[in-house]
């Protein structure tokens, strides 16, 4: 049996009609149900007290107790983001200037894999090497360096090292395309004009890389700001980070007004999404400049 159908091309032209938008309804409903509505309801509840509009909960959220958690989190995020940007760029440059293709690919693959490591297993691995009876701790003891009690892996400085484990590879992956965009001729031109390699880096390469470095910093900052699992596994409630505080409020370990948790959440959300939006804006701009 043969069947001949003629189809009018109208059926697959881009349109703006209602029926075409209806095809997206399941997806948009999903976004409403699990993203927008829960978020709006949290914003609303953080702004209302017994039915009237108030900023009380935000005032409480920036009292010294919670301000401390925000400052700790921002410090931790800024430190790991900064170290991640510096060392990540350095390692990325070492990777792309390696002549052996296999080594280059293997190192990029390693970054790809390890940037997704995090949470409990990573935290535990750092306890194994840098805990009070950890392997590195003992190795250093043999040569006369006593890490403990000045350093503790279960503290902010310990967390900084653990976070670098996923920050470093993320930066490497982010910056490699920008480093590959630096043309060899620019370096040669600078040298021909009498500049030293150091001057080339300071006056030519770094200004070109600057937007990529800043956008990398913002993404790394957000990455660390929202992290919870690694910190919780490593330190329990010992370290005063904002995500740890919000989680304690959710679990009901601390008895406070639920609206306070809402306000803390909304502030964290604003900080983190500002970083992500900044990152997206800068990296889109970089793409347009390159194109």
């Amino acid at each position, binding site marked *: 049996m043969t*069947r001949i159908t003629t189809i009018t091309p109208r059926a697959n032209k881009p349109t703006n009609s209602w029926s075409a938008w209806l095809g997206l309804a399941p997806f948009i409903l999903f*976004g409403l149900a699990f993203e927008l*509505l*829960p978020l709006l309801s949290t914003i609303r509840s953080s702004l209302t007290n017994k039915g009237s509009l108030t900023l009380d909960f935000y005032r409480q959220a920036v009292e010294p107790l919670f301000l401390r958690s925000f400052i700790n989190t921002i410090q931790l995020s800024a430190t790991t983001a900064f170290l991640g940007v510096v060392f990540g760029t350095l390692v990325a440059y070492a990777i792309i200037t390696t002549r052996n293709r296999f080594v280059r690919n293997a190192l990029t693959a390693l970054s790809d894999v390890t940037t*997704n490591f995090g949470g409990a297993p990573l935290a535990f691995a750092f306890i194994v090497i840098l805990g009070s009876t950890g392997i590195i701790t*003992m190795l250093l003891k043999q040569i006369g360096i006593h890490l403990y009690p000045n350093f503790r892996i279960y503290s902010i400085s310990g967390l900084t090292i653990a976070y670098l484990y996923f920050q470093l590879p993320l930066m490497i992956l982010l910056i490699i395309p920008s480093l590959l965009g630096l043309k060899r001729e620019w370096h040669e031109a600078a040298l021909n004009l009498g500049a030293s390699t150091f001057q080339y880096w300071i006056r030519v390469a770094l200004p070109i890389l600057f937007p990529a470095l800043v956008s990398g910093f913002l993404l790394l900052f957000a990455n660390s700001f929202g992290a919870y699992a690694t910190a919780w596994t490593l330190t329990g409630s010992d370290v005063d980070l904002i995500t740890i505080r*919000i989680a304690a*409020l959710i679990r009901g370990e601390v008895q406070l007004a639920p609206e306070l948790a809402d306000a803390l959440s909304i502030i964290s959300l604003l900080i983190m999404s500002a970083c992500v939006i900044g990152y997206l804006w800068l990296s889109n701009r970089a793409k347009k400049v390159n194109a």
Partner: protein
Amino acid sequence: MKTRDIWRIAVITLFLLFMIVPLIATLIFSFSTRWDRTLWPEGLTLDWWKAVTSHKAFLLTLKNSFIASFATMLGLLALVTPTTYWMKLRVPKSKPIIELITTFSFGVPGVVLALALIRFYSKIPLPIINHPAILVAACMVLSLPFMYRPIVNALEAIDFRVLTEAAQSMGANGWAILTRVIIPNIMPGIISGCLLVFSTVFTEYTLTNLLVGTRFKTFPIYLVEFTRQDGRQASALAVISFIIAWITSLLIIWATSKGGREATHIVGR
């Protein structure tokens, strides 16, 4: 020339040490009798592995993690594939809205997502609070970008419009076009997406802990419990976790490299 090589080798060696020592150390730790007084393990043993794998909860939590991962994967496939195709074909104007929904989780800390879902769904009479279903929904939000990106890239690499028209001229309906023409052509993207979602959800801790806690114990929850009780057995669990992460990541790298080639191959044909 020589000094440049030396700094490069030094930087790469330090990087490798930092990335690999924690993993190797955890692996050796899980096989050693005692390793807290001496530089090298005092002896080797399989005891911790035997002990940790013999708990009933071991297989149960692995199973739960697989259930959560596959449920999220299927949910996202059903949601993202038709939507992306429809958006590209008929409503390109909707792209900003779709991408806003997709990238939502990048800007929201996990604890905030969990809090918002709990606060909202405890107010409305839908019995999904504390139920694994809310975990799957949250994991879908979390891993949406990982499913969306590879599928959009794969769609952009093929001439979906021509393929659609060709299929229509042979009398195929919308469903047949999607399942028999478009999906086979974007398979590499779908596979990459599924693997990325799997590796995200399988290691997910924050949302699981806050949304369902001990009511639906997954592998990471089990692991954290052990880090507080028995470090030796926890090290074996951490090694399993690392191995699963390595395998999925290597499969992703393999799938993306293959995907690139296949996509160009299809376009060329």
